[in-house]
């Protein structure tokens, strides 16, 4: 159970990084990546995955 960021549509804006309650997001070569081992899809933490809710690009963050 994890989400992933589609690098080709990521704008590198960094909005998702500080929102992640599991500190699973980091920058890699100008865009951002999610560590699947840390990602919980915010289950039990928030109503919706925080990275998806704040991301400005529709469809950029999907289920891995």
């Amino acid at each position, binding site marked *: 159970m994890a989400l992933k960021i589609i690098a080709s549509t990521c704008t590198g804006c960094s*909005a998702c990084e500080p929102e992640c309650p599991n500190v699973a997001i980091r920058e890699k070569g100008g865009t951002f990546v999610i560590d699947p081992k840390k990602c919980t899809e915010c289950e039990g933490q928030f*109503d919706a995955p925080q990275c998806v809710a*704040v991301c400005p690009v529709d469809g950029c963050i999907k289920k891995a």
Partner: protein
Amino acid sequence: MSSPATAFVSIGDLRKGRQALSAVVADLPDTGGGCGSSGGAGKSSCGSSGGPDDMPAEIWDKVKNHPCYSEEAHHHFARMHVAVAPACNIQCNYCNRKYDCSNESRPGVVSQKLTPEQAVKKVLAVASEIPQMTVLGIAGPGDALANPKKTFDTMRALSEKAPDIKLCLSTNGLALPDQVDEICKYNIDHVTITINMVDPEIGAKIYPWIFYNHRRYTGYEAARILHQRQMLGLEMLTARGVLTKINSVLIPGVNDEHLIEVNREVKKRGAFLHNIMPLISEAEHGTVFGLTGQRGPTAQELKAVQDACMGGANLMRHCRQCRADAVGLLGEDRSEEFTLDKIEAMDIVYDIDKRRAYQAKVEQEREAQHQAKVDALAAAFDQQLLNVDPDMTVLVAVATEGHGKVNLHFGHATEFQIFEVSQSQALFVGHRRVDLYCQGGYGEEEQLPSIVNAINDCHAVLVSKIGACPRDELTAAGIEPVDEYAHEFIEKAALGWFAGYRERVASGAIEHHERGDARIRQGAFSGPTVAAA
């Protein structure tokens, strides 16, 4: 300091403005004042008068070297933006996040993102190279306060290393109430809030969603929360004496009339300056508005809304809608000289005394110019009333490279300043960007129609010089090319030309006709920077 009246404001206006100001200030809890709050004869705009006459001394001190807050200052002092804040917490229909935010930086131009450390280094490099650089802003490309750590790390370092530089930031206001303490901690004394509506019904057409308290809100609810946070943030800043500028994007058919109400509401809450900007909207920007065909306003549509707001918060008319990484005087961009690799190679010596000495010299020059302008005007016109409508006003376009004078060749202009001229005053009402007519010494035939479009609502264009070819074409388009006021002060030149125009109308030599509308140039400013010469 003695206070000569500026060309824009009558003494009566000033007095009325002052009284209204003290009345408003008395209503507000512990504000730092703010001439934006002056009601009544709101023509005494600090945004465009540029003089110390119409505001309290402590406010004048805050704005006099700030090119975004003082129309006159923007010819003398430079600002820079550092792009340390890429993240945003809302989505606007005029913004495409694949490019920069078109709110403060035009879309389609990719900027170099900076870390706070890189930003500080860049600021010190620019400040050493351009001593008139007095203002540092964080304007995106996202929202300054949606990136609080990056924004305030930058501000903290700068307040230590370059204490003479004024700090400012711009925000959509959503996170503002939570950050007011931090803003005050680093002496950030200018904050710009983009407010496009005070009615969530209208807001829902502009903002598809916001991210707030760990949730994405959409529709009416999103706009309602944003509106409440904007108003609360503005009130808090006013209470702490921070000067606020309100930016509003004019979106025809969505918020055009409504901006008059926005103006009233922000004025009531102590906003210092209101800047109404045209929507920039082209399909290739990939914004929602660009893709749905929502157009930007024409020059006259923009002016009509600005004019309707004249009695409210002071209007800013000289905004150039610059990018989130612009460097230099308003309307010019020297950011190419200060890319990261170039800064690496620079030997940076931040000499605060040298900067102060330079700025003092600029200040002297500027006061001398101001006085010369006032003298020239006082001596100039006492025109007898003619057999012509005394309330007649026309617009004139002016080619200038600064110093308040008509001193630019038509072919070298990348923008024209627009003045509204009546019998008794010439009022700066805006500017129009154009593509350069002269390139490599030859006139570009195909550029002329676009220049005519940009100033088509003007009766005349005042220039220092103009070639025979554009002269004929302008005349054919009904715009009179005027070069006999070369190197005169703009107001004096405009009033002088208008006096002659009225005489010609009175004598029957010409007939007075209303002019049509003009087109606001879309897209990024691409011409070479004239002011650098």
